[in-house]
């Protein structure tokens, strides 16, 4: 089921949570909303679910306008950050909830509900835990119960708010892979919210990067990393070095260094490059010289931190070969860099 968001905006009092947003999730797609806290990603997810009402704009499921439809009627599965399991109910009763609250004429028979619950318990690999209470489960198990509960009503759309936020790293990795499989197998359209870029890049078909209530970029994970659309995206996704520069006729000046600015407009700019997109150089145009402050061997190369005159944060560089000595002067040439206009 496709999801379309048209011109949706939202404010809380004087705080603008969402600028007018346009977004499309294709049927069967797994979409990540990635951004720092306060970027509006959870608000957008809640508006799509119907848990929050947009101030302007429309939400469409498969072309059908659902903006005025309450959450009870939207038929989406929603998984909460802290699971929101019903503490006083067993795992099985939690999963059955969406079926047992249906009006009598729409409610499946008791045996049918039991069969569905058993099926879902199997699906989330908690076959023998149906009679436990949520408090008796681990974090990862609770997350899977929350998923099973959301899936019990057979939604076509699954919305997840920071689904792995409260789990430790190992469980998180396992669950991630498992969730992706589940999504593909059930033919769902899923959107999940995360502030963890690694999670977004690994799991999603496309990543929606958000900041200050705006969408900065929508792209496949590789493109978000390789070709960030804005200074914010370059900064937020992956490691990067950032230099404030002045652009003049295709050249970016930082102190005495001159670098290729591509087709960036003249004026103040921000130049970015990744730590691994550098090579040792002898000097001259297109190079930067800095003093080594730290050198740590990493797999196959050395991570070097180097102080550059006029920059507070040290440059982070991945260099091949023998580690340089601390205090040594090194010169490198960024091989891939991007310059964005400095909006401030």
């Amino acid at each position, binding site marked *: 089921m496709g999801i379309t968001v048209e011109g949706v905006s939202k404010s809380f009092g004087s705080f603008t949570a969402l600028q007018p947003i346009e977004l499309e999730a294709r049927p069967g797609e797994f979409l990540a909303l990635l951004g720092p806290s306060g970027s509006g990603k959870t608000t957008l997810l809640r508006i799509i679910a119907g848990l929050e009402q947009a101030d302007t704009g429309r939400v469409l499921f498969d072309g059908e306008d659902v903006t005025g439809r309450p959450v009870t009627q939207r038929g989406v599965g*929603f998984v909460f950050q802290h699971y929101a399991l019903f503490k*006083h109910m067993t795992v099985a009763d939690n999963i059955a*909830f969406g079926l047992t609250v249906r009006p009598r004429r729409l409610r499946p028979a008791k045996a049918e509900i039991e069969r569905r619950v058993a099926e879902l318990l199997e699906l989330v690999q908690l076959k023998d835990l149906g009679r436990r209470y949520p408090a008796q489960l681990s974090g990862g198990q609770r997350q899977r119960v929350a998923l099973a509960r959301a899936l019990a009503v057979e939604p076509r759309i699954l919305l997840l708010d920071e689904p792995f936020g409260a789990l430790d790293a190992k469980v998180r990795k396992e669950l991630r892979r498992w969730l992706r499989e589940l999504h593909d197998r059930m033919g769902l359209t899923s959107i999940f919210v995360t502030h963890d870029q690694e999670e977004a890049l690994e799991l999603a078909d496309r990543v929606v990067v958000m900041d200050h209530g705006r969408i900065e970029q929508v792209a496949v994970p590789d493109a978000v990393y390789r070709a960030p659309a804005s200074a914010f995206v370059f900064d937020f996704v992956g490691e990067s070095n950032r230099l404030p520069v002045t652009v003049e006729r295709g050249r970016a000046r930082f102190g005495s260094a001159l670098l290729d600015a591509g087709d960036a407009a003249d004026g103040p700019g921000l130049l970015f490059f990744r730590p691994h997109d550098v090579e040792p150089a002898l000097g001259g145009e297109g190079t930067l010289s800095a003093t080594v402050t730290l050198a740590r061997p990493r797999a196959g190369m050395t991570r070097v931190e180097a102080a550059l005159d006029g920059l507070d944060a040290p440059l982070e560089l991945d260099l091949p070969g023998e580690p340089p000595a601390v205090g040594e002067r090194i010169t490198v040439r960024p091989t891939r860099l991007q310059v964005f206009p400095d909006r401030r």
Partner: protein
Amino acid sequence: MIEEAKPVPHSADATSEPAWARRLLIGAALGFLLIFLALPLLAVFSEAFRRGAAAFAEALAEPDARAAMRLTLMVAAISVPLNCVFGVAAAWAITKFDFRGKGLLVTLIDLPFSVSPVVAGLIYILIFGANGWFGPFLRDHGIQIVFAVPGIVLATVFVTFPFVARELIPLMAEQGRDDEEAARSLGASGFSTFFRVTLPNIRWGLLYGVLLCNARAMGEFGAVSVVSGHIRGETNTLPLHVEILYNEYNFVAAFATASLLAGLALVTLVLKSVLEWRYDLRGQGH
């Protein structure tokens, strides 16, 4: 997760006092409790039984005493459920919705705690009394509120209003809206969300509030005294009956009746401890 503090050797414990100081403090606290709480309680029961169990039973079997008991039970039976509903509704509104005037509502809920019960009683006289705002209207329609059962119920409802709401507001605020939103997203109506998710989540807190509300409803003196009119066998509650008997130097009967209220207090305390224990167990669950 925070690890539980391990016991530290005494010399290293900055908050530990010398043994004599500890004994003095504990002794003072216990002595205070004994003189101001335990002794009066003991006195109530010993006075009640001074002339033996027969006199005690006789005092309680007396028609006016029976009427007072009936009235007290009836007032509690009306005002406790009312405040249960009001309290849940107020706590629900305050914790699950954002609206204008929320702060004012929270303050208003506390009003009965901050105002003297006598004033609470006088308010009703002012509104419903013969010379009050609605006095002529009520007289014309033959409705009596003040110096009758409705007035006593109103005064009791007013005085006991905060108990349930006060107990539930912090509890429901802590629980947040996630559970309700989850239920709604699964298609549950507002009605089933409340009865199947919210109510079970707050049941122990609610019981606790109801218990305290009930104790106060049965024991309230000041506000009820103002609006009751002290008509024997008709508008006397147990606390008022105790006062009347005492003023008539009928000590055995006064204390016998008082011992009922003291007994109620003891039962309330026991139930309260049981509930607190249950509360704690649940608190550790998540």
